[in-house]
């Protein structure tokens, strides 16, 4: 076991180093272009620059939760119940929660500047907030005591239940808002014509954030593997110690 631990003690590989270096370059370009090169928006002014962080992080958060659901379903369906699926689901959810927090913070800052309010009870915003809380709960379930298999089974089922829950929450919030008031939120998907450089910066942001996401998930699931191995090793050495005590007696 100790050999396995030593062999896998580094979480970086050539592939992750390439991904990491590329993401640094792309993100540097996004920072320079987003803050200095791209023009102000006619209506939104400087606040439009928040978009270069907000939109990619929202995209990554949703992508991460889809990955978690797919990995959890794969764990449940696969006969071998490979722990790789479980670790991938957990790593993806952790990174997703972080990006969801960035989405909510940048979104409310943008909302304050554009709508004059930090928060609007818009269906999309409300569903996003519920998704955030749901996955914080998912991460709490992963931290419950028990074996690695128990953790995998519980969290896979909770991830599947979240897939059931989110459409229900979204539908109920849409129905709630539609019956009570009209859309109060400026629709950013209306006639938005975007400068070419702005669009390219936004696209670069999406690519950069996706690379960061992949890099983080790969490293995180490897550190999770190390934690599991270290726990097993602790258990193994404890068993050996008890056996030694037994034979000494």
């Amino acid at each position, binding site marked *: 076991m100790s050999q396995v631990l030593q062999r896998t003690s580094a979480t970086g590989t050539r592939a992750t180093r390439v991904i990491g270096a590329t993401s640094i370059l792309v993100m540097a370009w996004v920072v320079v272009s987003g803050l200095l090169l791209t023009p102000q928006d006619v209506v939104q002014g400087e606040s439009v620059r928040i978009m270069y962080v907000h939109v990619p992080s929202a995209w990554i958060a949703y992508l991460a939760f889809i990955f978690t659901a797919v990995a959890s379903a794969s764990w449940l369906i696969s006969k071998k119940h490979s722990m790789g699926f479980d670790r991938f689901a957990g790593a993806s959810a952790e990174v997703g929660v972080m990006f969801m927090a960035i989405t909510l913070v940048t979104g409310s800052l943008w909302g304050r500047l554009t709508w004059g309010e930090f928060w609007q009870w818009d269906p999309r915003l409300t569903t996003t907030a*519920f998704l955030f*809380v*749901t996955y*914080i*709960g998912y991460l*709490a*379930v992963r931290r*419950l*005591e*028990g074996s690695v298999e*128990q953790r995998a*089974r*519980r969290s896979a*089922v*909770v991830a*599947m*239940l979240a897939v*059931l*829950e989110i459409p*229900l*929450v979204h*539908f*109920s*919030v849409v*129905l*709630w808002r539609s*019956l009570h008031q009209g859309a109060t939120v400026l629709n950013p998907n209306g006639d938005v014509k975007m400068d070419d450089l702005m669009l390219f910066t936004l696209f670069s942001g999406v690519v950069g954030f996706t690379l960061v996401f992949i890099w983080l998930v790969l490293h995180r699931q490897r550190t999770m593997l190390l934690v599991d191995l270290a726990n097993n090793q602790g258990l193994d050495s404890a068993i050996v110690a008890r056996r030694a005590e037994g034979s000494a007696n």
Partner: protein
Amino acid sequence: MKNISGTKVAKGKVVSAVLLKDLRIELRSRVVTNQVLPFAGLVMVMFAFALDNDDVLERVAAGLIWLATLFSLFMIVQRSFAIDTADGALDSLRVAGIDLAAVFFGKAIALALKLIALEVVLICGAVLLYRVDLSANGLVLLVTCVLCATSGLAFVGTLYGGLTAGAKGRETLLPLLLLPVVAPVLIAATRATEAAFGSGGAQTSEGWAWIGLLTVFAAVFGVGGSLAFGSLIDE
């Protein structure tokens, strides 16, 4: 499904055995009647203190009833599963070779019955304390709403209660997991109850749209819960 001795146990028998066991525990301990009900009543009174306006109270009565129900749900679920895990009763059920989906339904029906008793008292409390009006048409809508919403709450409560049963920190984990899930029930049941009360000029007919959502919720988590419950409490 066969049990340890190899004999087949009908699902219906398991459901009724678990249901009667949970109800008998309540009958003997009287936790819902002596602790949860007074707690929910106190919450209603506290809301009145906090809002301090008769018109506002009448307008928000529906939401307060369902919020008090949700708070009580956590207490009842935790209590029910704490008893089951304390003496390893849940483990015994698991190794008895009986259908765990039937255990799920038995516990969910018992929880639903307790919740319905609680909601009846809360609704009476709202009529008395918050001065809401209830017409005959409104009453039909309200009874349907209570039945549909309570089924959904009971299924979800039992499912997540099973998940957190025996875990450290379950008192805080259960609300964190349950509240986002029951948000659709809170929204739909509140709107339907508002329509039944006629709060804020709402028409009774407006409430029936929400009953559909409550039914879908109950069906989804009834099916999902019966499939998932076994693997959640399985070691």
